[in-house]
């Protein structure tokens, strides 16, 4: 705790008052700590332990039948083409979805911040509205929009384009879900970018303008560097969210056609549904590792900024 350079004096005994405050403080924290240990820390550890056992739904009544099986669940996972497919799908979802969401949200934020003076609140509310809504409910609406004879194809028809059966086509199903995810998440990043844009020093813009820099040059040389930490932060929180995508395929495609939209979270849920608890835990831990790696990358990148 307290680091004192040089000779270490004997650690002072905490005074009575300090001890009392420690008791009081833990009293304040007690309800949180109990709930935290039982419903959060416990399950995180239990999930890891379970992933090395052969626990299934049948063992719930007879916990002593459970054996440790080492890495068997993980070996089986990486032998299962469906799991590998789900990893690829999740990766594509993140790698395409995150940059596109950032790009669109950044454009909207820039337009709202500098291009217009009126109706800002109206636009902000409109672009943010999808964020507050239930993904399940919205996915149902989008399912109808994307049907073969639905709204989108009708709209394309005006221009003489005959759209595919978006959600039943092995090529188009995943891009359709990505499109919906972008639509739903623009608002979050727009707000974050709007906050970040407030931190770009106005003097830099003025100076660049005096030097004759065009609007685009000012964007790439002044705005973007100042916004770098914000963009990184946005990339990581969106990435973590997108890694867990589940509701969209659950409601819109059931993971099909031919596993084209099966996500890792959905694979885990399906295995849980079959009663393969330990196997599902292993699958969820692979996803968890990906999330941890992403968070660590963020910390490193942000540290370099300072």
């Amino acid at each position, binding site marked *: 705790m307290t680091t004192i350079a040089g000779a270490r004096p004997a650690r002072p005994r905490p005074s009575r008052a300090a001890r009392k*405050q*420690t008791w009081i*403080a*833990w009293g*304040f*924290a007690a309800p949180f700590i109990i709930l*935290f240990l039982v*419903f*959060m820390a*416990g*399950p995180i550890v239990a999930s890891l332990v379970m992933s090395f056992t052969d626990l299934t739904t049948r063992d719930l009544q007879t916990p002593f039948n459970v054996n440790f099986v080492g890495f068997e669940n993980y070996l089986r996972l990486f032998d299962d083409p469906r799991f590998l497919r789900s990893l690829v799908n999740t990766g594509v979802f993140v790698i395409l979805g995150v940059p596109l969401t950032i790009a669109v949200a950044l454009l*909207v934020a820039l*337009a*709202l911040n500098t*291009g*217009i*003076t009126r109706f800002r609140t*109206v*636009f902000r*509310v409109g672009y*943010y*509205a*999808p*964020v*507050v*809504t*239930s993904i*399940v*409910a*919205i996915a*149902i*609406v989008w399912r*109808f929009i994307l049907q073969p*004879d*639905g*709204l989108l194809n009708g709209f394309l028809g005006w221009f003489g384009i005959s759209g595919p059966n978006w959600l039943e086509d092995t090529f188009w199903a995943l891009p359709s879900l990505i499109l919906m995810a972008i*639509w739903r998440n*623009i608002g979050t990043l727009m707000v*974050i970018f709007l906050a970040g844009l407030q931190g770009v020093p106005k*003097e830099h*813009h003025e*100076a*660049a*303008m*005096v*030097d004759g*820099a065009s609007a685009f040059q000012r964007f790439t040389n002044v705005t973007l560097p100042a916004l770098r930490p914000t963009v990184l*932060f946005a990339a990581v929180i969106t990435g*973590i969210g997108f890694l*867990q995508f*589940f509701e969209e395929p*659950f*409601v819109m495609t059931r993971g099909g056609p031919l596993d084209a939209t099966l996500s890792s*979270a959905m694979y*885990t849920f399906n295995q*849980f549904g079959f009663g393969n*608890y330990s196997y599902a835990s292993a699958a*969820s831990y692979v*996803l968890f590792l990906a*999330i941890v790696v992403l968070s660590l990358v963020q910390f490193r990148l942000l540290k370099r900024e300072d």
Partner: protein
Amino acid sequence: MTAIETPVLTKAPLTKARRSALTPRPKWWLYIVLTLGGIAMIFPFIWMILGSFKTTAEIRSNPLGFLPEAATLDNYTQLFGRLDFTTFFVNSAVVALFVTLGNIVFSSMVGYALAKLQFRGKRLLFVLVLGTLMVPGVVTFVPLFVLTSNLGLVNSYPGLILPFLITPLGVFLMRQFISSLPDDILEAARIDGASEWRIFLRVVMPLCGPAVATLTILTFLGSWNNFLWPLVVATSERMYTLPVALALYSVGQNAAQYGLMMAGAVVVVVPVLLVFIVLQRYFIQGIALTGIK
């Protein structure tokens, strides 16, 4: 770079012409682009509301029709009659209410300890909170289900509520806010002989209005829209929450009942949208405060 090398120029008084060049005139074409984008953003909601007043036959025969030809409330009467959405609505509301209350009470308490009290183990506690900010539900739901079923809480309100009574995000938010309150007022109360509980209840909490408002909105919304855990733990129909009911009905025999499904979506989405439009300032403040939805 250039900005730093030319400070003299920027300091010089700006002529009127240059000043107006620095605050560019609003561009009319941006309004058009933003409006078109905005329409694309809210059109699914309009489509959903209009669709909920159409019959399935009408949607089938005229999939691109905008306004309902003969507006009907049939979908809603079916929803609340045959399908018991009243129960699901009540379930969602009860769960969200208790989850929100729990988060306010427990996050404030531990947030106060972390922000204003000195005690052993404080840093460890804070690191634990930060370390679990990003743990997703998909990692914990399997052991959580085993635990819940051993406690006999599957298909019960406690089973739906207990795992969400605390969130690391809530603790983080309250801790940050309480840290920003001045120490002087707490010291003054301590000198007057007030106990820490009294200070917490009478001095700190009354000042936490904005933080509590943000926390209320974020947790209520999170709970209302929560899907994975209720899907896992509510195995019988009477315990379904709205998203679970909607998702499960949307793939069964009602799947082709477009109007009915649209009405279901309206019941889930529209109350939230109305609250959002009224309180939008707090929503957006919450995002800006925490960066996490």
